[in-house]
């Protein structure tokens, strides 16, 4: 079914199961340790051997010689793969991930060998015994600031030029011209990348931790040069991905190659220290923001230039894109630029684009508020716009409640208690401040399918490639199915993450909940028709409720209609061109209170509130949970997350969870999340929009603005660590 006109009334509107805070249906499995993650399939692979990846010590150059003889002779070792003995693979496909294809080195920790042994420990020990002689390239770029001026435009992210930015900015009564920087960041999800591969004849099965099953099938079959129909990928449970598991790394490919060579299953997991350099990360950005405004705060000119770097062929961090839509202003100049770096490859991470773009833009708005003397909430309300500023009123937002988010949030948070004069509130040893920021996240949609069936017990089974990476997909898809078929949630089974099921949207870019739910909706529409037909009803005026289908006073149970053979339907949603007509995004207002230790400059978040408008909230419990995660990541981005580049070695030097810091429980206060009532009939039949990443978009800026309000110190170089604040703090009083 194609979704190309706004949705009319439909069974989802009933709100009997959808919109209810249903507990996670996979919760009992998770808390009792029975949810099986990729590396944990033991019974299916009693004979599995263990692979260990050896990574490159240099960032660029080539291997002159690699000697695995000692390793091969070590106890338990079955196989050592290097570029000398690995079959040729194919690197051209978008999701392909060729490994060990030659002596060339393109990044630190690039796989240069796989050791396979009877035990993990034997493989790891043998990997250390491989002798490598490198020829490191004399050139190499690791510092974004140094290559920024050699940057190029990015075709995927065209410049947005509206009006005459230069003139309008020059003439503006109030001008702000600031540069913000954000560092490289790592996904740091809980479950490491891991795969197990097994061959049955020419059929390959890979259990792997992955967010996008059909991309994985594509990438694995493409890389290995075998038909996609011969590859089965399973990823029933994923311990977080945050974008990192959209792509393939050494583990599934080398597990497959080694399993073929050895004729037995092979498991490969990356270790935590490897992940920080071997897999991708969010690239650092330099963001130049210029805003010209009238004395009343109305923006007349807005410019945002976002610079980032990546390996050749890598993508830009599109940190300026949200500026195309968030605020009005007649004159606009928004550009994305990319330079070449030889750091590990950059890629999508936790709301790519907006998450770091808003760290800059929303602090710049705070600076503008101060310059104009207008309250930061009011400033954002004054600059709200209900249509795409570049296209005009012809392209309105499908729904946009930023102003309501701001108003509701300000009231709930007690924003009126904020003292606009920085550094004026003390609470014992703490300097206290409040900050606000807008949140926006593009509402992406993806085609998605599902197979739905009812059996003779009247139980609905939903099968789709969709993944649940900790987000709640199992539960919300179950809710949609239950709603459509008139069943209680207990009568629904959901099976995910298997390439034998229909292709789905997968999990990424916050498109999963809305798109995959729409896929289940489409499949259930078909199933309803089938059932109505089988029951001899005219399918137009039937109702599904209480496990029965009824029409014109007659009623039959689904179980009975399904009978011995059951009844099934496979359906799919494809999205038409509604987003040409309507700009689509989720919106939020984030409020934060921080306390800064006046002596040590330690920053502690005291309160965080996010008010979100994200269309229909399919499940307030799982959605809130998503926001909690996003808000925590926002705090991390603001205060601590940073991959430190060591240009001498061309890599990220802090590569474990002790040194790459993410917030711990003690850093996170009670979080408050409010969802506004919103129905977006242009988004899908579900009338929902993306939620997950909205939770992160803007939060970090609210934290940074609160730090400014608390201390009067504006730091434009994330993260805001205490060493950066310290020089600006007032002198300690001398005492004797």
């Amino acid at each position, binding site marked *: 079914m194609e979704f190309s006109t706004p949705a009319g009334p439909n069974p989802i509107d009933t709100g009997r199961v959808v919109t209810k805070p249903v507990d996670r249906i996979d919760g009992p499995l998770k808390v009792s340790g029975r949810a099986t993650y990729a590396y944990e399939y033991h019974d299916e692979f009693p004979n599995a051997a263990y692979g260990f990846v050896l990574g490159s010590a240099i960032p660029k150059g080539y291997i002159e010689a690699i000697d695995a003889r000692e390793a091969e002779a070590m106890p338990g070792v079955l196989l050592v793969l290097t570029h000398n003995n690995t079959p040729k693979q194919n690197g051209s496909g978008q999701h392909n991930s060729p490994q060990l294809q030659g002596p060339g080195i393109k990044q630190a920790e690039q796989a240069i060998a796989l050791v396979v042994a009877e035990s993990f420990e034997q493989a*790891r020990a043998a990997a250390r015994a491989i002798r490598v002689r490198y020829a490191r390239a004399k050139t190499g770029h690791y510092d974004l600031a140094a290559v920024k001026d050699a940057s190029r435009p990015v075709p995927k992210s065209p410049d947005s030029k509206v009006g005459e930015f230069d003139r309008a900015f020059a003439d503006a009564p109030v001008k702000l011209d600031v540069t913000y920087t954000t560092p490289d960041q790592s996904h740091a999800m809980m479950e490491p990348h891991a795969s197990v591969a097994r061959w049955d004849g020419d059929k390959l099965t890979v259990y792997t931790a992955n967010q996008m099953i059909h991309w994985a099938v594509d990438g694995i079959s493409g890389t290995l040069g075998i038909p996609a129909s011969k590859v089965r990928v399973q990823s029933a449970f994923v311990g977080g991905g945050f974008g990192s598991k959209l792509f393939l790394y050494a583990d599934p490919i080398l597990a497959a190659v080694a399993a073929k060579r050895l004729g037995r299953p092979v498991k490969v997991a990356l270790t935590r220290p490897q992940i920080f350099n071997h897999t991708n990360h969010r690239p650092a950005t330099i963001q130049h923001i210029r805003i010209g405004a009238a004395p009343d705060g109305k923006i007349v000119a807005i410019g945002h230039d976002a610079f980032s770097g990546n390996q050749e062929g890598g993508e830009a961090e599109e940190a300026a894109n949200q500026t195309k839509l968030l605020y009005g202003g007649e004159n606009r100049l928004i550009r994305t630029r990319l330079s070449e770096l030889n750091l590990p490859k950059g890629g999508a991470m936790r709301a790519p684009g907006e998450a770091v773009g808003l760290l800059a833009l929303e602090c710049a708005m705070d600076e503008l508020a101060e310059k104009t003397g207008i309250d930061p909430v009011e400033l954002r309300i004054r600059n709200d716009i209900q249509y795409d500023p570049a296209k005009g009123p012809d392209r309105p937002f499908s729904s946009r409640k930023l102003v309501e988010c701001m108003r509701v949030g300000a009231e709930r948070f007690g924003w009126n208690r904020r003292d606009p004069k920085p550094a004026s509130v003390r609470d014992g040893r703490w300097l206290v401040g409040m900050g606000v920021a807008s949140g926006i996240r593009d509402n992406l949609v993806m085609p998605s399918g599902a197979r739905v069936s009812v059996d003779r017990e009247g139980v609905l089974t939903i099968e789709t490639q969709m993944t649940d990476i900790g987000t709640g997909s199992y539960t919300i898809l179950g809710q949609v199915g239950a709603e459509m078929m008139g069943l209680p949630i207990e009568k629904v089974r959901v099976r995910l993450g298997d390439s034998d099921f229909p292709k789905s949207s997968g999990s990424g870019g916050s498109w999963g909940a809305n798109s995959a739910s729409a896929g289940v909706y489409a499949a259930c529409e078909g199933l309803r028709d089938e059932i109505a037909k089988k029951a001899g009803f005219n399918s137009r005026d039937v109702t599904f409720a209480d496990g029965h289908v009824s029409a014109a006073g007659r009623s039959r149970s689904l179980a009975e209609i399904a009978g011995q053979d059951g009844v099934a339907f496979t359906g799919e949603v494809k999205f038409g061109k509604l987003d040409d007509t309507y700009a689509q995004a989720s919106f939020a207002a984030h409020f934060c209170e921080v306390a800064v230790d006046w002596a040590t400059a330690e920053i502690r978040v005291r309160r965080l509130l996010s008010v979100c408008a994200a269309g229909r909230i399919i499940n307030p419990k799982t959605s809130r949970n998503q926001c909690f995660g996003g808000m925590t990541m926002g705090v991390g981005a603001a*205060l601590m997350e940073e991959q430190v580049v060591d240009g001498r070695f061309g890599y990220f030097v802090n590569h474990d969870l002790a040194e790459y810091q993410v917030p711990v429980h003690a850093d996170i206060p009670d979080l408050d999340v409010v969802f506004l009532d919103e129905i977006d009939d242009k988004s899908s039949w579900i009338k929902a929009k993306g939620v997950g990443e909205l939770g992160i978009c803007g939060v970090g800026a609210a934290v940074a603005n609160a730090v400014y309000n608390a201390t009067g110190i504006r730091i434009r170089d994330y993260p805001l660590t205490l060493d950066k604040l310290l020089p600006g703090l007032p002198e300690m009083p001398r005492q004797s």
Partner: protein
Amino acid sequence: MRAFTYERAASPAEAAAAVARTRGAKFIAGGTNLLDLMKLEIETPTHLVDVNRIGLDGIEGTPDGGLRIGALVRNTALAADARVRKDYAVLSRALLAGASGQLRNKATTAGNLLQRTRCPYFYDPARPCNKREPGSGCSALEGFSRNLAVIGTSGACIATHPSDMAVAMRVLDATIETVSPDGATRSIPIAEFHRLPGDTPEVETALRPAELITAVTLPKPLGGRHVYRKVRDRASYAFATVSVAAVIGGDGRNRFAFGGLAHKPWRVEAAEAESGRGADAVADGVLAGATPTRENAFKLPLLRRTLAATLAA
């Protein structure tokens, strides 16, 4: 991780003898540091002697009114001990500021004293590091040194000792008791226990090969106000950027020891006498001769401010 053999010792003397017997043998207590280092082959013992069943897990009073802490007492138990909380509160607070609940349940008194630096290059076998591989060079000197030492450093190494517990023990003038394979015992004042890096950063303590720590003794209580102030980027589960262990006004003196500054818990007794002239006067003495890197120079003002806040509180 290299393959190793394992045995469980039943008494302190037997443990020391067992380590002396096998070349490349090491004690293992909680294993929270040693196992991590073995996985990365930073430590490559050939044989492990498990000391978890040798007794030494009690805390008892000493004849002169002090406290004797067995080497195997877990960090959790030590922090919770009523006598420690009452008379040596700085120690209890320092322990609770370290690691996490799970780690403290395993970590032992001796293991904590002997934990190794968290310098990121030390943890990366692909990079030069004099401590890990003597003579290979120090990657941190010109590299990522934000959290490394600012004082007592050498051209060979600028690592810090990461322990919180040891800083509190230093301010309390603890003594480390040991037994050697030949049965001889020694008492080492904590001031002499940890060493500065000099030209041999791989030598970190005064312990001799196969010498086993049996206990740590604390002198009789000092009284006074006990403070442990740990400054760090996140609120928990992070090593100290700087820390101050203070006993203020006990027996008419102020005592301060510092973490995050040096290759050992840092204390300058002479500077303590300057307390009357304010925190800056003490800090001047404590930080005299400091040689920070560009990245960690902020630790000097940070320490001054933290000390001032500690005194003012």
